[in-house]
């Protein structure tokens, strides 16, 4: 055997190799030891759990955002959630929903005022005013072009809540030393509501006290003070919930 032939034969010894399964097993044993961490702080950071993790995170954030006040970072999320919920509410239920939201906004304004958070007062007031305008529009839309009977039903449902909001609003505004905005002072809704309430009362059997109160309400109505007429109707003997 020549030297070159020997070298060629030596090179052929390269075919001596470890078994492939052993190579793979050994690799996983050596490097895989670290791949089973003793404790995973965030097991959700695995692609398979990513969707679930973000759903839970979102649900948590939405829940947490429910306590947010205007000006808080999560307040926008709270409003978006409410808007999303409103999409699933029927047209007939919209006035009630919007009144509920108006009541929430007024509660927020009250909290901001109580905590003396001056910087958040303006956004809180703005949110309340915007929501109340939407609620009043929804009430008006829901009684427009409806039969008398249907309109009375709607008004009797929403009037107590609207009155409650008005009363609380007066108190909060008085505490803050502010008056109604121009949009808020628009009494178109109150006019329509009082009109329906007066007509309904006229078709009912009234006590003497109620007849007196109705006369006063009509006076306010004729003088164009629909807000006062509504308030008197709701707080006096004519209150439909009595």
């Amino acid at each position, binding site marked *: 055997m020549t030297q070159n032939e020997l070298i060629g034969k030596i*090179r052929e010894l390269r075919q001596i190799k470890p078994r492939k399964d052993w190579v793979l097993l*050994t690799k996983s044993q050596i490097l895989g030891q670290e791949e089973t961490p003793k404790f995973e702080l965030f097991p959700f950071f695995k692609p398979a759990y990513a969707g679930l993790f973000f759903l839970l995170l979102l649900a948590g954030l939405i829940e947490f955002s429910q306590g947010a006040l205007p000006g808080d970072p999560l307040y926008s999320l709270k409003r978006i959630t409410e808007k999303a919920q409103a999409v699933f509410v029927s047209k007939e239920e919209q006035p009630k929903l919007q009144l509920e939201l108006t009541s929430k906004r007024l509660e927020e304004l009250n909290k901001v005022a109580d905590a003396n958070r001056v910087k958040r007062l303006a956004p809180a007031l703005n949110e309340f005013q915007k929501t109340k305008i939407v609620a009043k529009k929804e009430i008006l839309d829901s009684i427009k072009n409806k039969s008398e009977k249907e309109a009375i039903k709607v008004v009797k449902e929403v009037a107590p809540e609207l009155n409650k909001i008005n009363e609380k609003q007066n108190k909060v505004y008085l505490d803050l030393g502010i008056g109604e905005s121009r949009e808020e002072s628009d009494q178109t809704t109150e006019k329509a509501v009082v009109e329906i309430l007066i007509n309904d009362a006229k078709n009912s059997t009234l006590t003497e006290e109620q007849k007196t109160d109705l006369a006063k309400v009509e006076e306010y109505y004729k003088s164009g003070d629909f807000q006062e007429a509504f308030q008197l109707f709701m707080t006096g003997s004519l209150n439909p919930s009595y």
Partner: protein
Amino acid sequence: MKNLRKIFSKIYDRYIDKIYRFIFFKVNSQEIAQDLTSETFLKGWESFKNGTKIENPQAYLYKTARNLVIDFYREKGKVQIVSADNPLIPDPAPNLEEKAMLSSDLDQIRQALTELNDDYQNVIIWYYLDDLSISEISQMLGRTDDATRVLLHRALKTLKEKLKEA
């Protein structure tokens, strides 16, 4: 850590065959070669992940493998050759599976190679089988390039003589 694992994984893939073969020629047993090879890479991985700077992974792995083979023979009370005059005692029962893989003349060469002393064996494996350069081998052996060339020449001559004897 993930990045270190990725780097070492590449080192493993690149050198596993060479290190296994290198050890196999010294212990002449598949089972022992597997044990010592996995121990070599385990030691390498532990040093690597603990931040030991390994500039030349190949040299590091060969050195670790050599030390493990020495320890193996020391533990077993077998003779470990460190000089040209004391050849390694091969495993009396070479693995049948490995033997079947090779043709008879190749097996003869393998057998003769295992009987060479450590330095001769290393220089032949590194130069002809693993394609290391003379300077790389010189660095690992702590010799000059000329001395390595001479060593390689003598190793090949000795191997040839061994084959003639067989």
